[in-house]
């Protein structure tokens, strides 16, 4: 089980970008992390991986995996200490594979680090079969540029699985793919999660994908988790006005309204996040109390929770 407690990620200059983020992921569970570009989703995932760029660091909170603290460990340090592993697949399958090494070499490299007892070539073949790459034996000898985007993303998943992870982070893994390929890759991730008991953190800004794929959702805005909930209650009755705003932006095929809804204003830059609730300047329900101080945690039914003074569902106030 991955447990993230009060994670703070800051620029070296001291500006926090991700603030007090907490969540947990059980084995076999898919948690969707939703938010706009720049909301801190990707930095949260890189922090979990131990892959933050040198200009950014974890400045608060802790990350534990099956009880072992991994907060400040880079991937190779985690391997050396034998702690549990977090693997990741990235948004851009076209640039995430080394162009001058064969697919097989890139998978086997991970196998040798994480699976020293196996025969790398056999295990690589097994992994390519597992991610449903046809003619796997032949593809092991291919170079990345010889594969399509969907195939490359499958190879990325195979590399991630070669690390025998407890947790798989998927950072918008289907954004760069065709719609039909998207669906196959999503199906693959869900199957593997169930079959191998891997917990998945699925990062996306696509609420449609969230509804198809995951059981739980965390909504991020300006570096803060504003709401976490199971998928069904979240879509039926969001607590936080930002979540509600996102839902309202989904196109409704039955509506005659020619324009799609939008949330007025834009998300604040990381160096200009207002005091109090970061969403207050754009929020239709905001009052003066929202603009300073800490935000109350509001709990709804079925584990739904939001940080808001004026949540939408009155009955949910506990």
């Amino acid at each position, binding site marked *: 089980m991955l447990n993230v407690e009060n994670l703070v990620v800051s620029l070296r200059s001291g500006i926090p970008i991700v603030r007090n983020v907490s969540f947990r992921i059980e084995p076999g569970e898919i948690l969707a992390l939703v938010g706009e570009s720049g909301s801190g989703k990707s930095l949260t995932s890189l922090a979990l*991986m131990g*892959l933050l760029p040198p200009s950014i660091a974890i400045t608060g909170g802790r990350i534990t995996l099956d009880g072992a603290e991994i907060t400040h460990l*880079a*991937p*190779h340090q*985690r*391997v050396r200490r034998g702690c549990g*592993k977090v*693997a*990741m697949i*990235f948004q*851009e399958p076209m*640039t*995430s*594979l*080394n*162009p*001058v*090494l064969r697919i097989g070499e*890139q998978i086997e*490299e*991970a196998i040798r*680090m*994480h699976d020293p007892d196996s025969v790398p070539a056999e295990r690589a073949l097994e992994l390519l079969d597992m991610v449903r790459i046809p003619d796997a034996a032949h593809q092991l000898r291919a*170079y990345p*540029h010889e594969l399509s985007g969907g195939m490359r993303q499958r190879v*990325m998943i195979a*590399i*991630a699985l*070669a*690390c025998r992870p407890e947790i798989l982070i998927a950072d918008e893994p289907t954004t760069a793919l065709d719609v039909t390929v998207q669906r196959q890759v999503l199906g693959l991730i869900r199957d593997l999660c169930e079959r191998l008991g891997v917990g998945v953190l699925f990062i996306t800004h696509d609420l449609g994908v969230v509804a198809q794929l995951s059981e739980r959702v965390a909504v991020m805005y300006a570096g803060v988790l504003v709401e976490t909930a199971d998928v069904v209650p979240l879509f039926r009755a969001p607590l936080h006005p930002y979540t509600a705003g996102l839902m309202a932006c989904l196109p409704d095929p039955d509506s005659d309204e020619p324009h799609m809804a939008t949330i007025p204003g834009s998300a604040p830059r990381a160096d200009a996040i207002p005091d109090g609730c970061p969403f207050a300047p754009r929020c239709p329900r905001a009052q003066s109390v929202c603009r300073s101080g800490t935000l109350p945690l509001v709990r709804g039914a079925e584990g739904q929770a939001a940080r808001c003074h004026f949540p939408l569902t009155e009955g949910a106030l506990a």
Partner: protein
Amino acid sequence: MGPYILRRTGAAIATLIAASVIIFAFIHLIPGDPVYVMLGDAATPDQVEELRERMGLNEPLVVQYLIWAGNALQGDLGQSIFFETPVTQVIAEGAETSILLALITMFWIVAFGIPVGVLAAMRQGTWVDQGLSGLAMLLASVPTFWVGLYLILTFAAGLGWFPSSGYPSIFEEGGLSNLRYLVLPSLALAAPNAALILRLTRASMLDVAREDYVRTARAKGIPPYRVVLRHILRNALLAVVSAFGFTFAALISEAVVTETVFALPGIGRTVVQSILRRDYPVIQGVVLVIVCLYLVINLIVDLSYRLLDPRVELE
């Protein structure tokens, strides 16, 4: 790969023909008549005319060119006016020095430029990087002859570690130990080029380090030194390899200066002296040979580039 080499060789031959025309035309545009150089000021017009006729200088330029090019194809680059021996022999006499000088220089360039460039990139922003990059900037800016003179002053005249000038063949007395004569010249010649390769390696390493696939490699948990060697350096070298063709061109022109400073009996010094003597068959011959070498080296660089990078198609 076969058709690619053929096409590439065809292009090289076309370049060679164009270069030969330019070489020939330029030499004949230079003021100064070789016949007067050979005969001296006191020559009578009859003597001059007779020699011109004998050397074929009265033929139209096109005919002269065709004769020269035709002979060159058969390995005959004409007679040196000054030495009165075949040009090929003049070139062959300087070849040992020049080839050894080039090889040793290339060794320094690769042995210093690439590893130090990697080190600077890995220590980006620290005093190590700033010191190395500053040194590289200095070496790249200082003229070769100055570096040469300074090396002579310090290591030959001052410390007496290496000889200051000349080069007896390794086939003469002393054998391979004669190579010590080439240490200072090759260092002088390598300095600016190694500095360029250093800076290129550093810049290329930093570029590649930002690539997504390097993050993928780190995510696998492989040790940092392996990420650097296998994933960053391997790709960064693609840019460095393609620069070696240009480095070679720089070596040729700088070798002329270096061989003069160190009084080495190489091809570069022969060219300089031949220009002063209006010994145009030698100039033409040497430049033509250099063009051939340059084309061959670039062909090799291109082919190796295509072997290193699987994305480049070889059809």
